């Protein structure tokens, strides 16, 4: 991560950060009890990553 000319993140780092922040926000907005929030955040994060990596691999054959 280089902060001299702005933040430089890789694809995976950016996706992880994005998925984590959105999952936390969704968890807090849609659930009331702390345990439900944690479950929702973990599940949402898992799905974000699964679908993100899945789409990445699905596009792989077209990049050659």
């Amino acid at each position, binding site marked *: 991560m280089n*902060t001299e000319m702005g933040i430089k*993140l890789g694809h995976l780092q950016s996706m992880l950060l*994005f998925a984590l922040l*959105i999952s*936390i926000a969704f968890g807090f*907005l849609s659930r009331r009890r702390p345990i439900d929030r944690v479950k929702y955040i973990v599940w949402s994060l898992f799905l974000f990553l699964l679908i993100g990596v899945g789409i990445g691999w699905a596009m792989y054959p077209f990049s050659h």
Partner: protein
Amino acid sequence: MTDETAAPEAPPQDSRRETMAYLIGVAGWIVPGLGHALLKMWGRAAMCFLTVGLLVILGAEMRGNLFNSAANDAFDSLGYLADLGTGTFYLLAKSLETNGADVSHAGGDYGTRFLATAGVLNLLAALHAYEAARGRKA
């Protein structure tokens, strides 16, 4: 004979509550998390403020495209609307992005998405605060 087609007049208390809910929704849009803070939902208020703030700071630092009112096409207009969703944080993003956008690399492209998502997320949170203020289950 009574006129059954006329809608019953809303009680003054409901009307006042609706106005307050509207104001809370607008407050939540202008300052992320303020709508929930006014409803004393401290956890949600803090999380809205932090997540929207972080997305805006990261998006601007990654030199994402912050759209302005001089839109060239429909996508630019939609991007501008999404960015405006961050409320006052739009100005923060503008002040952070002193070198302008650079979408020639993946980071800049991600930054554009971060900024737009921050706006849409804040609009969702403001709508949530509005619904909670109206007494809907939240």
